[in-house]
């Protein structure tokens, strides 16, 4: 089933063209990755897909409905976005931050029910954060804060998850645990995930499909296996990349110039 679809999408920031005539379809159970150098517009494209900014041209469909015909609250019930940075201007406990994910599912006057609190608790548990539930949010480390943001997204429980660098700030073990979890959630709950990553090998390991942003609206879309090769990556990062064959899957490392 198609959860998110774009038709002839054109996105531009100032004079930088991010994409032109981009038509993609994210189906239930699929994990997508997006790779590109800094400043190629990965975040801009994600924000456009999340309805935070208007595309210059083209249409976005969320579960077959036009994105701009949905109210923000309706959209938030179907689509969630993990932001690259969290803003914590005021003191708050971890659990109160996570429960904010239930906002789009509650009506104006409604208070969070016992079930909502349970959903939030469960999300904390799934990300191994339950021991931090009562902690003030500003006492967390960068990695812990990132996982709390992920727990908030899981509490929101959208069918479409857009993740802006989910593995940033995380140590190796938590990177793998988080991406394992995301993949499992996506497949078992029939969601779809699109995430930006800076680690080619993580994207090789976890993504079914890839979007490569090469710059100046030049984009490659396709199966991870087909797209990930030395030539494409060299073009993508403007740097020589070497492929090393190991037993399970190939590894890509930066070569010397």
């Amino acid at each position, binding site marked *: 089933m198609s959860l998110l679809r774009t038709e002839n999408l054109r996105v531009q920031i100032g004079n930088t063209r991010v994409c032109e005539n981009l038509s993609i379809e994210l189906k239930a159970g699929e994990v997508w990755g997006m790779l590109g150098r800094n400043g190629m517009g990965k975040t801009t494209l994600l924000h456009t897909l999340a309805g935070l900014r208007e595309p210059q041209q083209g249409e976005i469909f969320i579960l077959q409905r036009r994105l701009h015909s949905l109210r923000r*609250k309706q959209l938030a019930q179907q689509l969630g976005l993990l932001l690259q940075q969290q803003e914590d*201007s005021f*003191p708050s406990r971890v659990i*109160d931050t996570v429960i904010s994910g239930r*906002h789009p599912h509650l009506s104006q*006057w409604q208070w969070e029910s016992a079930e909502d609190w349970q959903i939030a608790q469960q999300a904390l548990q799934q990300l191994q954060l339950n021991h931090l539930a009562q902690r003030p949010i500003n006492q967390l480390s960068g990695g812990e804060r990132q996982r709390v943001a992920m727990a908030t997204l899981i509490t*929101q429980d959208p069918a479409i998850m857009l993740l802006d660098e989910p593995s940033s700030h995380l140590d190796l073990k938590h990177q793998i645990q988080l991406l394992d979890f995301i993949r499992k959630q996506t497949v078992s709950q029939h969601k779809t995930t699109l995430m930006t990553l800076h680690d080619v090998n993580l994207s090789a390991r976890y993504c079914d499909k890839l979007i490569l942003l090469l710059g100046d609206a030049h984009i490659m879309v396709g199966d991870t296996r087909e797209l990930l090769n030395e030539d494409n990556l060299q073009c993508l990062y403007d740097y020589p990349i070497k492929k090393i064959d190991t037993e399970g899957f190939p590894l890509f490392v930066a070569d010397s110039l």
Partner: protein
Amino acid sequence: MLKPLTTLTLLLLLSIACFILALSVGSVSLPLSDVLHSLLGISSPPATQADAQLSQHIIYELRLPRAYIAFISGGLLALAGMLMQVLLRNPLADPYILGVSGGASVAAMLAISAGFGSTLISGSAFIGALISIVLVFGLSHGRGSWTPSRLLLTGVVIAAGWGAVINFILSLSPERPLKGMLFWLMGDLSHTQSEQLSNPLLPMVLLLGLLLSWLMARSLNILSRGELQASVLGISLKPLRLGLFLLASALTAVAVTQAGSIGFVGLIVPHMLRLLISADHRWLAPASVLCGGSLLLISDTLARTLIAPQQLPVGVITAFIGVPVFLYLLNRSYRQQVTP
């Protein structure tokens, strides 16, 4: 942190205690029984009829109106401060930061120098506040994108502009109205009249403000986590921002009209409660009203009794209480961060 419901109950009891204290303390100190008798309308024994009439007069004509206005103004300021802090996502924002009080002050100064009575001074102050609100809103919502920092900078600059105009008026003013002006600028409740007791508009504004804040409260919880995150969680930013700005400004305008620009209540009360109770605005809004009201009521009681028969402007007392309390809380919260 304290349990929200317990704190709210404690604050309610505190408010009542403040009221009783404010009614019994003063140039003539009234025993608690007299205060309760005349509040509850129980007639006293005939022997003390004359005494009862006197205390009746003191309570209903002098102290109750003033206590009432103090409580409501304090509640309005604290609520407005809470809203302003979320709107600007700055825990150090206060109700006056966007120049509402500056506009009100200029208009009030002009009215005082023209020799108007206190009703006309209040009226001018309200109009001045409205002019300032429209000005800041128009300038910060002109062409281009809207950001909290643009609103903040516009407001701060406008406020500075009003400050210059105030200084200009003060420096040209003859001596006689000068003291009235200074008291007004520091915040003063000594001009309260007993007719204000029967005016239903003020408590209605406060209750309406509380109701609207409550209606927005969960959205405010989300907005305090940043505008992007709020959008992602399904909040339409434009109407919420507009509503917040107008509501906070209107509440401030009404408070300033009543009591002049009393500082610190709108800054420290919401900030303190955020640290003490919870970050949930559904609790914060009523708690701010009760705590802000009590703080101003206590301060005003001190202002008229500390060096009686001389009266101090209440703004001086709120600053004397506010500064050390704020610094203590700030230090405490930072200490907690270092050693969790």
